[in-house]
């Protein structure tokens, strides 16, 4: 590890999200960054500045695509127009693997633009897994699904979230984008042990890890990606790395975005956890 068939047998290190406020710094200073994660939907367009900028980034950096609206968990079929545009972008970026969320967000052609939580049922697992397989066959690139933060649970659920994740990835034979911050947020919102979740994840399927900050309110925690990573999340990350092995890791920072150097420095804190098992001879 970390190279496996779910991340295209790559050995990517620590990356950050490509965000517009950092463009000037990136093009001016040309900082050394192992890889950038892009939001696929921002570039699923016909032309203009966003694609021209992406092409300049691709000349110098490795890019991995992360989607927000494939909605593998929506009961309706995959959107063919969406897939066609996604495939065109995959060819452009040559992303070695592609990620999107284990969630739903559309029904009958209407879109919420949110990452809505799944009911953890066997029917939902089968539908979701089938759509992941269909997307992978069409896009011809490994797919990893990301566990989301959630604020609601449903009466109809038949299993825990981690059991559902395992059901989906086994049935789809796909990878996992393990978001340790999302596990922490959901564990606080739903009163479960985040380590029990982490210990149940099939490590051999983890293609990538996400870390991020969040906001704490009186009655719940919101996944806002607008703060540094807190210590309990770093501890979860440490545990994940010890279990799974060094894995491509990305820091998400999407709101109240500080300078490039600040975001990159926060991401690079992951290095000490990645190097710890090797230093200990594990």
């Amino acid at each position, binding site marked *: 590890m970390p190279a496996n068939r779910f991340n295209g047998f790559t050995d990517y290190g620590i990356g950050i999200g490509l965000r517009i406020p950092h463009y000037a710094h990136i093009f001016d200073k040309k900082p050394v960054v192992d890889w950038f994660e892009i939001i696929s*939907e921002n570039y*699923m*367009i*016909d*032309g*203009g*500045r*966003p*694609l*021209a900028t992406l092409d300049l980034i691709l000349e110098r950096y490795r890019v991995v695509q992360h989607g927000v*609206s*494939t909605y593998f968990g*929506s*009961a*309706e079929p995959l*959107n063919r*127009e*969406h897939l066609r545009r996604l495939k065109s972008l995959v060819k452009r970026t040559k992303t070695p693997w592609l990620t999107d969320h284990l969630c*739903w967000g*559309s*029904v*009958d*052609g*209407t*879109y*919420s*633009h*949110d990452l*809505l939580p799944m*009911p953890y*049922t066997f*029917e*939902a697992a089968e*539908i979701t897994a089938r759509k992941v397989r269909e997307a992978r066959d069409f896009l011809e690139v490994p797919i990893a699904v990301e566990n989301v933060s959630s*604020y*609601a*649970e*449903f*009466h*109809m659920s038949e299993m825990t979230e981690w059991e559902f994740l395992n059901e989906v990835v086994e049935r789809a034979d796909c990878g996992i984008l393990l978001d340790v911050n999302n596990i922490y947020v959901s564990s606080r*919102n*739903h*009163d479960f042990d985040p380590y029990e979740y982490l210990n149940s994840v099939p490590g051999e399927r983890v293609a990538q890890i996400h870390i991020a900050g969040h906001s704490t309110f009186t*009655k*719940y925690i*919101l996944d806002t990606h607008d703060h540094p990573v807190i210590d309990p999340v770093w501890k979860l990350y440490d545990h994940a790395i010890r279990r799974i092995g060094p894995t491509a890791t990305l820091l998400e920072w999407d709101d109240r975005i500080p300078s490039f150097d600040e975001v990159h420095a926060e991401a690079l804190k992951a290095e000490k956890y990645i190097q710890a098992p090797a230093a200990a001879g594990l």
Partner: protein
Amino acid sequence: MTLLEFQRRMMKAVMQPLASSDRIARKMADGRPMRIEAAEFITPNSRLSSLERLEIYSRSYWYRALDSLYDDFPGLRAVLGQQAFHRLSRAYLADCPSQSFTLRNLGARLAGWLQRNPQYAGKTFALALDMVRLEWAHIEAFDGAAEKVLGPEDLIELGPDFRAGLQPYIRLLEFEYPVDRLLIQVNQASEEHEEASNTVLKQKHHGLVQRVTRFECERIYVAVHRVDFAVFYRRMAAEEYRLLNALREGQPFGRAIRTGFKDSPVPSGEQPSMLERWFAAWAELGWLCPPARAGQKKQGRISQ
């Protein structure tokens, strides 16, 4: 309950317009209490009721969609004022929720919706409609497709039967008000007043809009296009506007020129020099491209 039934139910609840003070709606569209609806599929915990958990998603949906329209239509905000814009946005989203995987397309149906619902713009309806059309064209011109530009070597056989296309990202529009200049002024005022209070900015926008609505009703023709990836508005004569539309429709040059000058007051002796100037401008801006093939989308519009 199947997955599809569950998702239809939750989506309906999430998208129910927020009540006053931005709390979740108290009732579903059919009058059913939202509290009872939420309790039927959402599990409460020790800190949050089913309704409160649903409210997190409902508010998140509405804030995200409203923010998107707010960012995409600064000119319409200036024309209507903040409160009327907010009312219009909520009504539009209730009638026309997103049908695209990207929020970029959220405003695609706003012009058509406003034509059917003029009461949301009141006395400024015509100006507001012009502004919506311009701002949507701006979005399309920003990231629309570009084809290979026709160069001198392609135009060597230029004659009456020669056909050329217009770059797919270009939008040709006819307005009743000079909204191109108004939008530029609105955006400049917003940039200049970045550090000032909202009140100052509102007064500035109000003044700009008042001037346009009182004195400046004039028919104009505008091409919304881009140069080096920045979007620009170029005023045109009615003849040039008609000619370019004819080219886009696939007419050969000879016929397109006749279409452009049909019923024109421009003396025939002056027409060749006008054509020469237009061609020079189109060549410089790279507007001409090979004609669209049969079945090809003429304007590179993202299908909804």
